[in-house]
């Protein structure tokens, strides 16, 4: 069980091989009743699980872009850990989606082999908030604050979902999301209350993500058709507004006054209609898995 060096552990003959991508992780959901609750459409439940999964998966991918490029070492570690929590939530939700769908797709197939129009994440998580020309640390913090406040409010209600698997995933997720929200709020205060320069960036960061705020609270027909299973996001708007206003007040920031980004012919992220950034993100995320299917090391 203990090895002289890391290579011995990797090559341990009795051990399972490691996947080059994905996990090959199986049976992550035992101990919970996995049957689809009576009267629930499997197509709608699959779609809903994908929505929640894709939000977490895509933001996780974005946050890992900061690894080794954050303003300080502690922040490299923090953003990577937050990304890891979200990836964990995504994996459980993708597994549930595949199981309910019943077409034999596992978490890896859903993460790596779907095309852009099949991703159902909100557009907030896919936009490029840096590092690089797409944004900076303050934009990333602004997005994390908005996202984690919103997702926490949804998950706190999802704990009572009629689907026991979603309820169990949410019960784990709320603890993680509360940490993410607190982390982003702390940074919002530090940047807004720091120097003139940091404050300017924080104001600009919030203004950059705000056009995608309204989309978070637009209840989709899939959510409407799953009463007591899904949480209609319009239900959490008042609470999210209130929490963010508390942070804005403490940070002496104004709520941004910018127009929402419009939907395309009434469709947006939840319908698989994404921004230009999404294709590039997926190309990077899916490249290895698609070039070398089933690769192991």
């Amino acid at each position: 069980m203990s090895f002289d060096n890391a290579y011995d552990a990797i090559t341990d003959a009795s051990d399972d091989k490691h996947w080059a991508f994905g996990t090959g992780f199986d049976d992550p959901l035992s101990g919970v009743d996995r049957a689809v609750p009576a009267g629930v459409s499997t197509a709608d439940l699959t779609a809903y699980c994908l929505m929640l999964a894709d939000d977490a998966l895509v933001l996780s991918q974005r946050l890992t872009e900061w690894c080794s490029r954050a303003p300080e070492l502690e922040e490299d570690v923090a953003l990577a850990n937050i990304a890891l929590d979200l990836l964990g939530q995504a994996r459980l939700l993708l597994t549930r989606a595949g199981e309910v769908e019943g077409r034999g797709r596992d978490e890896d197939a859903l993460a790596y082999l779907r095309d852009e129009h099949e991703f159902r994440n909100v557009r907030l998580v896919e936009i490029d908030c840096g590092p690089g020309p797409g944004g900076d640390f303050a934009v990333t913090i602004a997005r994390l604050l908005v996202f984690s406040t919103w997702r926490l409010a949804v998950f706190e209600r999802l704990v009572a979902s009629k689907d026991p698997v979603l309820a169990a995933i949410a019960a784990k997720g709320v603890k993680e999301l509360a940490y993410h929200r607190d982390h982003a709020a702390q940074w919002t205060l530090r940047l807004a209350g720091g120097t003139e320069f940091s404050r300017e960036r924080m104001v600009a960061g919030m203004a950059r993500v705000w056009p995608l705020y309204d989309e978070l609270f637009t209840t989709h027909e899939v959510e409407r058709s799953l009463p007591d299973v899904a949480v209609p996001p319009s239900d959490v708007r008042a609470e999210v507004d209130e929490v963010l206003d508390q942070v804005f007040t403490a940070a002496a920031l104004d709520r941004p006054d910018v127009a929402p980004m419009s939907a395309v012919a009434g469709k947006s992220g939840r319908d698989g209609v994404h921004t230009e950034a999404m294709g590039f993100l997926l190309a990077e995320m899916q490249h290895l898995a698609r070039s070398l299917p089933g690769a192991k090391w």
Partner: protein
Amino acid sequence: MGVAKARGVVLPVDNSPTCGQARAIAERVLDPELPVLTLADLGVLRDVREDGGRVTVTITPTYSGCPALDEMRADLHRALRDAGYERVEIRTALTPTWTTDWISADGRRKLAEHGIAPPQHKAGPVTLNLTPPVTRVRCPRCGSARTTELSRFSSTACKALRRCEDCSEPFEHVKEI
């Protein structure tokens, strides 16, 4: 809607005498990220069942994305196989949700002995802190209550990094969740 606990999600904990050997072996497996603790100390070992030559072990993740979970599975497999069990199945249960309250008293003592501040009991949910956080974590080396959080996230997702203002030593703290 009611609460999730009312949904009949009950995890059996089998204490029947038939699972003596396998349980003892599984309990001794160390946590890959906090190797001063056994999986039993950490509270992630939920059930061990023996049926003839077949063993089924149920563990639970600490965090949704805990990368140590696959290592735990591999370590449990190896330990039980080395002890002669040929058919070993490791299951992962999501409920009841793991919290730091599942860490045993023995586990807390071991953490402190190894310089890691153990989590406090019944810490409750994390609230939004808009004022400087109140220090409640004691230095595991000198016992001082004057400690400062350096980073919310440390070498693993489950620990924060702090510094003692009296002995100046940095130390890790297993965060309450």
